[in-house]
């Protein structure tokens, strides 16, 4: 039935560098995205592993990962290439042995997008936090992501993708993304993992974790998450950090049952902290 013309993303990655499990839906969507050659736009609560997904895909498929971190000042052209005029001016005045001032190519460096296009092998391109940039930014990328090529006006050359990269785009919802851009993407919203799935995630990161300790941790964690009035609910990454701290500190089960040690690892805002202490009751 399926035409497996591409390497499939299996969804669970457990290596030195990346530990990640995707739920079946996400795994499926990733594979559909790769097959359809569309960018995958991933949204979700902070700390649910949006960025990590790209790492996991690259690791799972054995492909190189190129990251483009978007900042508020980022422009589409930065991702394509940079023309270093100042260096060229400097070289023309004071000379340079490595570069030829008359050769403009020596002063053009490719950005992450350019690098991804230029690669002989297929790469995974992560465009991280696209919503940080200007509201028009995604629109400036339409052509590049659609046709997978861009034009360097200084050299009058086209850079065309040798192989179509797998594009993963993350967004934190700080700005609405333009419709034209959205139409071209496949979209997935990472839901917050339910308890059972969260246990799997914890076990992946801490394989030697005792079951009763994990149960207690999850109990505390989901109790905190139940306080919906908190400004910033603790996320998966914070839970993992917290368990790490607990393990390092060698805290006893008894202490954990009586309260939440190192609460600051989970709850970062002062008001939330007060609320958490007030709401959660412990057996004395």
């Amino acid at each position, binding site marked *: 039935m399926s035409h497996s013309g591409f390497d499939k993303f299996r969804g669970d990655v457990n290596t030195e560098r990346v530990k990640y499990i995707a739920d079946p839906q996400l795994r499926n969507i990733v594979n559909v995205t790769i*097959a359809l050659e569309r960018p995958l736009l991933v949204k979700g609560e902070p700390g649910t592993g949006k960025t990590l997904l790209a790492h996991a895909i690259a690791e799972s498929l054995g492909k190189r990962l190129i990251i483009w971190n978007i900042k508020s000042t980022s422009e589409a052209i930065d991702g394509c290439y940079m023309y270093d005029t100042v260096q060229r001016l400097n070289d023309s005045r004071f000379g340079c042995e490595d570069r030829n001032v008359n050769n403009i190519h020596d002063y053009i460096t490719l950005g992450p997008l350019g690098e991804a296009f230029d690669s002989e092998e297929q790469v995974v391109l992560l465009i991280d936090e696209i919503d940080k940039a200007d509201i028009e930014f995604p629109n400036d990328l339409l052509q590049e992501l659609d046709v997978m090529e861009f034009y360097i006006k200084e050299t009058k050359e086209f850079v065309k993708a040798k192989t179509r990269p797998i594009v993963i785009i993350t967004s934190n919802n700080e700005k609405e993304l333009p419709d034209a851009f959205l139409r071209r993407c496949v979209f997935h919203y990472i839901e917050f993992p339910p308890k059972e799935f969260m246990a799997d995630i914890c076990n992946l990161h801490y394989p030697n974790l005792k079951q009763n300790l994990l149960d207690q941790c999850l109990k505390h964690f989901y109790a905190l998450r139940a306080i919906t009035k908190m400004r910033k609910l603790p996320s998966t990454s914070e839970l993992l950090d917290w368990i790490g701290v607990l393990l390092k500190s060698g805290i006893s089960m008894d202490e954990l049952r009586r309260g939440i040690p190192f609460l600051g690892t989970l709850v970062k805002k002062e008001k939330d902290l007060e609320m958490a202490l007030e709401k959660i009751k412990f057996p004395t």
Partner: protein
Amino acid sequence: MFIDYFYYLKERLPVSITEYMTLLQALDQGLIHNFVQFYYISRSILCKNEHHFDIYDIAFANFFKDAALKFPEEIKQEIWDWLSKDLTPSDLPDKFQEFIAQNFDLEALQEHFEELLKKQDEEHNFGDQWIGTQGFSQFGHGGQNPMGMRVGGSSGMRMAIQIAQKRIFADYRKDIVLDTRQIKVALKRLRKLEEIGKQDELNIDKTIDKTAKNGGDIELFFEKRRKNNVRLILLMDVGGSMTPYAHLVNLLFSAANQMSHWKDFKYFYFHNCVYESLYHNAQRIPEESTDFDEFLRKYDQKYKVVMIGDAAMASFELSEKYGSIYYYHRNEMPGIYYIKEIANHFKNNVVWLNPEIIKPEWVPWTRKIISSVIPMFHLTIEGIEEAMDYLRKGGKDIYTTVNMFKGLNY
């Protein structure tokens, strides 16, 4: 094939042809193997905003619930494709499978099915002939005929519909829930980046770039000064009937507070109605307040005013002298005087956000009165967006509650 489905969604969601084509591409490439996958993949392709997921869920469940019962021509073939896959379930004992293989003629069955489908015009359950559930007929699901065909059930259609029916994304709906980030997004609409003044701001980066390209001869690059010129005042109703909304208001407040890019941002509190003092904090201590007249003197039309409250109070609080909710509070002027003063002073730069729905037919009298003076919007993302649009355009060409209640007597 899925045209009906597409148009059904299009009536409810902003889906485009590009996206529909992508979905067809996915179907064509054989990327979708069952109905549950179809649910998720079609959502990923057609629906680009988690705020719309709930609407998608409802539409999906409704469309395919009908489809599962009525089998429109287009979907019938799809069902056949799925059914033919399920004919020899591997988990059945070998003997049984042999039995099925010997007694089972797919084509004959298909003909019979089509025939029945033509005759059948309504839902049949517990029968022995028609397509339905729980029966002994060869068709349907949940039945007991060993040669029977499941319709709907095992193809996963029902399961996908069930997933949709759970409506786990109900909380993400844009017209219902507000959270800090969403409010921030909405308030950003107000950001008015005005290009004002002469081109007198030096852009260092562009100057360096131009100079370098120029071979080192200095070329200065000037820009118009860009500055956010918005000045905002938030007036919030606290206490009493607003208590259930305290959290909501708190969110709005913290969102507004974090928006540091405004030129000026002030906030005041009142209870039920504005009178001669505006309080600096929610406790409303008289020592920490600003006199109403001074408030008007201090802040002119350059300020945008957002009032938040449910505008529900006893009618005398609005219409009577000494009508304030506080017994010892002797307001010399009725509450409506102050509301009108604000409306007259700030002209089209004032809006009222109300956490309760504004319906023309059944609203508290005081809400009607206030919304006939100050344009009132619902305190949802959509409402805030409308309100911000109103403020940004200075109230031009926008139909508000003021138009709605025009000519109201009180």
